[in-house]
């Protein structure tokens, strides 16, 4: 998409490598091993270059263990690279303290998880407003902004429903609304339709298109071709390296 190159760069990876040492919890996590199982050392992301522009949807595809999730974690400042640089909203994450990276996530990054990770006791409205608690927003404003955001994702009639009272697709919409409530420049979605049926998944991807149209950069990792079909461009990873040319 040639227009994307004219827009501001929201996130950038320059020769990024992420290596996990043998036996580390990250290595175990990468291989999906239990804490008692030995984990070998692994290069999860290998010399990856990537620029994500405002309003752009970037798809990340590849088989399991190819480094998709690790790349997303690097972009979300949940991890720092072993070498190379990751820049998000103009800030180099590898030079930031853990506290500063947490603040960067609050200010500039929204994350959508495959398993939603909503708080079961809270109604949709309160779930969406959770990040605003950290920002010190007043209760009234939290409520107003959360309701506006839920209406935007099509859940204006589900404000007081708790996650247990919502379908999988509705829960994912709540999670997306929560990710967008702080108006982040970058939205990271790791397998966002992995637990949804095809029709519901399609509704979610349509929502991502709307979000991107409003200027938010979206990075989506998925095994599912229909999810990636909305992407302006798709990068492919194998063994941590880009193979899409």
């Amino acid at each position, binding site marked *: 998409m040639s227009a994307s190159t004219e827009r501001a760069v929201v996130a950038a990876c320059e020769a990024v490598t992420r290596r996990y040492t043998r036996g580390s919890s990250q290595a175990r996590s990468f291989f999906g091993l239990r804490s008692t199982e030995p984990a070998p050392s692994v290069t999860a992301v290998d010399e990856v270059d990537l620029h994500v522009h405002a309003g752009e949807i970037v798809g990340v595809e590849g088989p399991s263990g190819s480094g998709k999730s690790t790349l997303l974690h690097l972009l979300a400042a949940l991890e720092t690279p072993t070498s190379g640089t990751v820049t998000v909203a103009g800030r180099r994450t590898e030079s930031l303290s853990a506290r500063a990276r947490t603040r960067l996530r609050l200010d500039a990054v929204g994350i959508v998880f495959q398993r939603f990770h909503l708080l*079961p006791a809270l109604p949709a409205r309160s779930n969406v407003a959770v990040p605003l608690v950290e920002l010190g927003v007043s209760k009234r404003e939290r409520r107003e902004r959360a309701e506006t955001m839920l209406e935007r994702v099509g859940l204006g009639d589900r404000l007081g429903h708790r996650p247990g009272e919502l379908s999988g697709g509705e829960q994912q919409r709540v999670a997306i609304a929560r990710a967008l409530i702080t108006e982040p420049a970058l939205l990271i979605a790791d397998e966002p339709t992995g637990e949804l049926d095809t029709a519901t998944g399609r509704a979610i991807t349509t929502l991502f298109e709307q979000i991107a149209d409003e200027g938010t950069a979206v990075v989506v990792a998925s095994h599912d071709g229909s999810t990636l079909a909305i992407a302006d461009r798709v990068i492919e990873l194998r063994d941590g390296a880009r193979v899409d040319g």
Partner: protein
Amino acid sequence: MGSRLRRAVARLQLSGHLVRQRLRHTAPRRTVLAVVGVALAVGLFVTVSGVSVALATEGSVVSSDVDYWITPEGTSSTTLPVSVGGPRFGEVHSVATRLSETAAISYASPVAVDVLRVTHNGTGEYVILVGVIAHPDLSVAGVSAAPLTPGDPHYANGTYEGPWTGELVLSTGASDLLNATHGARLQLQAQRGSQNRSLAVAGVSAGGTTGLGSVPVGLLHLAELQALTGATTGDTADQILVATDDVGVRDDLAGVYSNSNVVARSDSGLNRLTESSVALALATAGFLVSLVLGVLFVATTLGLEVQTDRNLWATFSALGFSRWSRALLILFQTLLLGVAGGVLGLLLGRGGVWVANVALTSMVAGTTVAVFPPAFIAVGLLLAVGIALFTTPYLVWLTARGNTIEALRN
């Protein structure tokens, strides 16, 4: 409202939601167990301290009598009533007579104390002489006044011309010291302005024992001691002892003399001090043991819960909640559970005090053996808050040591 305060209030509200989430969804049993743990700790503390405080304040006197000392302000109420040159009460015979005529008071006696040299068969020793208005049930420092002629015959309505009984009851310590037994005649060296008199040992009584050992005590009629010491002018004494089985008279006694204190009686001031210290030590130990038990219990139950909730804390981290913020969320939750446990514990403790009173009074005595003063509410809640505060660092450490990404995958 400032941003900081608004954030704190919002975190508190969110913590409340998280507690509710645990109670309803994720870990109801462990959450209830944590509350019960705090409640048991607070309840245990309140019950143990209730008995300790009752001991210290002598609400648990194991006799039917409740006795009081009226002492001049500024004197120690926890020492044996030995007063040399200290403030004294005046017109004590008339005050004691008036008090004795009160229906709720069994008897009242002034107590004057002086140290005089007493000689027997050429052996002279200083003895603590205690002057009283004799009553068969009266004992001072463990020495019984029963062998003395009841009342104070020599006083004779303030004329000091009544019969001189010359009776003296010695403590075993004084008896041993002077080698004087029943019937022995003792010589007293009177003070300036008085004449030397002889006294006869009317009895030897066990007593005069304090935490420091046996002291030589002699009990005699007050007017005779006053005559020996030249204290007849003003009719003075050091203290007034009031025997009653009605705790309600205490307030009335406080108004008998201005600048006076009313304290519960014990056999010995030193014993009283010792008992108070033991009670304080018991209460302190109860507090510390309850604190440790509560912390261990809550740390175990909530620790397991935090481990189970790893993905919750990882989610908060991913959403941009700082480590400090997450620690505050844990602190607020622990405090909420702690305070809930504290309130429950106070109710349990109140029940424990009631049970102790019902059970022990039926077996031992007809009076209170444990109390629940209002201060227990504050101390009990303080204990609950303490348990929460001491538990929080461990819970924060548990959440911080996990791998966020690993937790998010689960």
